[in-house]
C-alpha cells in the first residue's frame, strides 16, 4: 500500500461538466419528468386564468403578475425534480465517490434548471400571449426577454441552492417550496414590476432600470451564496 497519487490524472472540470449535462439531458428525455409537467402546468394555469378572470385581454400590472406567478409556480416543479434522480438512484454518492471538483455539480444543475426554464418559457410565453395578453407580444418581446433572463437567473441560483438543501431530507417535496417561495418573492416583485410597463395597454413602455438593477443585484448575491455553500450542502 502506498499513499501515492491516484492512478489516473484528476478529471478535467470541463469533461465532467459535459458528462453531467449529457446525463441530465438523457435522463430528462427518457423520463419526461420535469419539463412536460412544468409546461403543462403553465398552459393549464393560463387557461384557468382565462376563464376565472373572464377576460381575454390582460395588460399592465395584471398581465405581468399572472405571467410571473405562473412561471414561478411552474419553476417550482422543476426545482423539486432537479436532484431527485440523483438522490433516488445514488447519483449523489456516485459523484461524491469520485475525485471530481464538487462545484461542477453545481454548474451542471444550474445549467440544467436554466434549460428547463428556457423550454418552459418557449411554451408558456406564446400560450400567455394567445390566451390572455391584450397588447401584442412582438413589440414587447425584446424588453420581456431581458426581464426573463434576469428572472431566470434568480430562479436558477435560488432553485439550485434550495434543491440541494431539500433533496437530502425526507420531506423534500414540502421543504423545497417552503424555502424557495419566500426567497423568490423579491425575484417575483422585481420581475413583475419591470415587466408591467412592457405589457402596458397603451404600448411598450420603457424598462424600469431601478427594478432591473435590483433584480440583478439580488441574483448576484444569491449566486455568491450558492457558490459559497454548495459544497457544504453535499457533505454528510
Amino acid at each position, binding site marked *: *500500500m*502506498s*499513499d501515492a*497519487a*491516484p*492512478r*489516473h*490524472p*484528476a*478529471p*478535467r472540470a470541463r*469533461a*465532467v461538466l*459535459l*458528462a*453531467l449535462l*449529457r*446525463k441530465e439531458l*438523457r*435522463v430528462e428525455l*427518457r*423520463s419526461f419528468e420535469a419539463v412536460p409537467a412544468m409546461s403543462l402546468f403553465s398552459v393549464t394555469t393560463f387557461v384557468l386564468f382565462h376563464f376565472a378572470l373572464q377576460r381575454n385581454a390582460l395588460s399592465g400590472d395584471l398581465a405581468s403578475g399572472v405571467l410571473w406567478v405562473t412561471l414561478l409556480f411552474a419553476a417550482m416543479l422543476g426545482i423539486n425534480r432537479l436532484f431527485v*434522480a440523483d438522490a433516488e*438512484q*445514488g*447519483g449523489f*454518492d*456516485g*459523484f*461524491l*465517490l*469520485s*475525485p*471530481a471538483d464538487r462545484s461542477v455539480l453545481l454548474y451542471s444543475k444550474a445549467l440544467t434548471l436554466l434549460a428547463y426554464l428556457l423550454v418552459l418559457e418557449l411554451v408558456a410565453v406564446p400560450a400567455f400571449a394567445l390566451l390572455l395578453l391584450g397588447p401584442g407580444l412582438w413589440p414587447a418581446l425584446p424588453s420581456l426577454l431581458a426581464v426573463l433572463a434576469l428572472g431566470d437567473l434568480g430562479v436558477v441560483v435560488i432553485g439550485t441552492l434550495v434543491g440541494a438543501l431539500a433533496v437530502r431530507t425526507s420531506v423534500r417535496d414540502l421543504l423545497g417550496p417552503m424555502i424557495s417561495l419566500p426567497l423568490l418573492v423579491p425575484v417575483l416583485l422585481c420581475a413583475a414590476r419591470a415587466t408591467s410597463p412592457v405589457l402596458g395597454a397603451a404600448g411598450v413602455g420603457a424598462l424600469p432600470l431601478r427594478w432591473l438593477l435590483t433584480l440583478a443585484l439580488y441574483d448576484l448575491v444569491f449566486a455568491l451564496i450558492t457558490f459559497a455553500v454548495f459544497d457544504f450542502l453535499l*457533505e*454528510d
Partner: protein
Amino acid sequence: MAILAALELRGLTRRYGERLALADVTLSLPAGQTLAVLGPNGAGKTTLLRLLATLLRPHGGEVHVLGHALPAEGWAVRGRIGLLGHEPLLYRELSARENLRLHAALHGLTGEERAQELLGAVAMERRADEPLRTLSRGMVQRVAVCRALLHDPELLLLDEPRANLDPAATELVEPLIGRASGRTRVIVSHDPAGVLAEADLVLGLVRGRVAMLAAAGELDGASLAELYR
C-alpha cells in the same frame, strides 16, 4: 520492510442524532488483505463502509485510509476507492455503457477500453446499450461491479457484493472482486461461513460496538454464529 496499513482506525465513532451507530472501533488492516465485517442488522456495518468511502464524517476517533487521514484528506483517496453497496449508484434511464461513460468522466478516464473489458468480463456486452430499468437486478448488480472497478481502485468496499447474483454470475465476478483481485478489501456479509474462506481479519459488530476482532484462521462457524444470537 514494514507492512503499511491500508486502513487504520482508532476509536472511530459515529452517531445518527442521539443514536450511537459506531462506537470506539479500532483496527488495522495491511494492504492487500481482506477484512470481513459481520453482525446483525443495524450493527453499523454499512455505516462503517460509508465512513471509509468518505461519504460520512466520523464524529470521533481517527480514520486513515490508504495513508490519508479522513475526512481532511478525503480528496486524496476518493479516486482510489471502489464502493459496491446495496444501491448500484447507476441511473435507471441510462444504459450500462452510458452509466460507465459518466463514471469514467468523473474519474478522469478517457477511452472505452476499460469499460468494454469489464462489461465483457461480467458477460454484459450484449445488453450494454439497454436502459438499466429494463434489466434484472442481477444484471444491474453486474454493471455495478463494473462501475466500482472502472477506475482500478486499490481499496474495495463491498456490502453484500453477491446479493442478487445467480451462481453463474457469482462465478463471473469472482476474479474481479474476490481474493484473486489482489486488492485490499472490506466485505460486509451475512454469510459467516463464506466470509471465513476469503477474509484475513474478521470484525464482528453488535449495536455499533466491537464484539469480535480476530484473525480469520482463529475462528470457526460456531463462534461467528454467536454474533447473531
